[in-house]
C-alpha cells in the first residue's frame, strides 16, 4: 500500500475505526515498515487526545433563567388568548355579526308594527264612519237617475 493512501486513511477512516479489519491489518503492516507514516499516526493520536481533553464549560445559569422566563411568558399569553377567545365566542353568540343582526332587528320591528297596528284597528269606535260595504251598498244605476246613498242626512240634503 502506498504512503499517500495510508496517510489519507490515517486521517479519516483508520483513526475513526470505520475501516474493515482487512484494511486495518494492511495499514498496520505498512506502519511497522514506514517511520514517516508511523510519525503521522503518533501526531494524529496526540491531536485526538488533546481535543478530547478540551475543557467543557458549563452553561451559565443566566441562560436557563432567560429560557424559563420566556416560556412562562409565552404560557401566560397563551392562557390569556384562550380566555380572550372564549369571551369573543360568547359575545359573537350574544351579538351576532352585523348583517344578521340588522335583518333580525328589521324583521322584529316590522312584526311589532303590524301587531300594534292590528290591535289599534280592532278596537271598537276607532273609526265610526260607514264601512266600505255600507258606503257602496246603495250605489246603483236606476235608469237615468243616479241615486247615491252616502248614509248621512246632511249629505242627502245637499245632493
Amino acid at each position, binding site marked *: 500500500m502506498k504512503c499517500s493512501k495510508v496517510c*489519507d486513511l490515517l*486521517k*479519516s*477512516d483508520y*483513526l*475513526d475505526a*470505520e475501516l474493515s479489519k482487512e484494511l486495518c491489518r494492511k495499514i498496520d503492516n505498512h506502519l511497522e515498515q514506514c517511520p514517516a507514516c508511523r510519525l*503521522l499516526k503518533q*501526531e*494524529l493520536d496526540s*491531536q*485526538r487526545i*488533546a*481535543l*478530547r*481533553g*478540551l*475543557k*467543557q*464549560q*458549563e*452553561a*451559565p445559569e*443566566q*441562560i*436557563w433563567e*432567560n*429560557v*424559563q422566563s*420566556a*416560556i*412562562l411568558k409565552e*404560557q401566560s399569553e397563551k392562557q390569556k388568548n384562550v380566555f380572550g377567545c372564549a369571551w369573543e365566542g360568547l359575545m359573537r353568540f350574544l351579538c351576532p355579526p352585523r348583517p344578521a343582526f340588522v335583518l333580525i332587528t328589521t324583521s322584529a320591528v316590522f312584526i311589532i308594527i303590524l301587531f300594534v297596528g292590528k290591535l289599534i284597528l280592532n278596537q271598537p269606535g276607532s273609526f265610526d264612519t260607514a264601512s266600505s260595504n255600507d258606503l257602496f251598498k246603495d250605489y246603483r244605476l236606476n235608469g237615468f237617475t243616479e241615486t247615491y246613498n252616502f248614509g248621512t242626512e246632511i249629505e242627502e240634503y245637499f245632493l
Partner: protein
Amino acid sequence: MIEIPQSLLEDAALGDVRAFEEIYQAASGFVYNVALRIVRNSQDAQEVTQDVFMKIYHNLKSFGFRSAFRTWIYRIAVNTAIDRYRQILRQNKGRLDYDAVQAEGSCSPAVLEKASQLDNQAKLSKLLDTLNPEQKACVLLREIEGLSYRDIAGVLKIPVNTVRSRLKRARQALLQYARGEKGLT
C-alpha cells in the same frame, strides 16, 4: 449527552416546565460548548443556546419521535450556531475569519506568536479556530460526542463522504497548525 427518557419529552411537550428543565440540564452543556466553539465568544454562545432551547420547546410537539432526540438536538445546535456565526461575519466584516486564517497559512507568525502566549486550553481553542464552522462541527461531533460518520451525516444532513473529507481536511489543517507552532516555540 445524557440519554433523555421519552416520558420526559412527552411531559415537556405538554408544557411541563420542570420536565423541560431536566432536558435542559441534560443537553445544555453540549449545546453551549458547540455554540462557544463555533461562534467563539460567550455572549453569542449564550444567545445561541437560548435560541436552541426555545426552538426545542416550540417544536417538541411536532418532533413526533421519528428520529433520535439526541440527533435532533445536535442538528438544531450546530445549525443555529453556524447561522449565528455567519450573521456575525456579515455584521462585522473586519473580524478574524476562519477561512482567512487558513488562507493566510496556518503557520502565520502573528497567529502563532499570539497562540504561544496562551495556556494549553486557549491553545487548543485557537487550534480549533483554524477550522471553518462546518469542519469544526464535524470534529466536535466526532471527537467530543463520539458520533460515527453515519450519525454525523444524519445530524448535518450531508453525505457520509462529505463527513469523511471534512474530517480529513480538518485534521490536516490542525496538524499543519500544530507543526508550525512547534517549529516556532
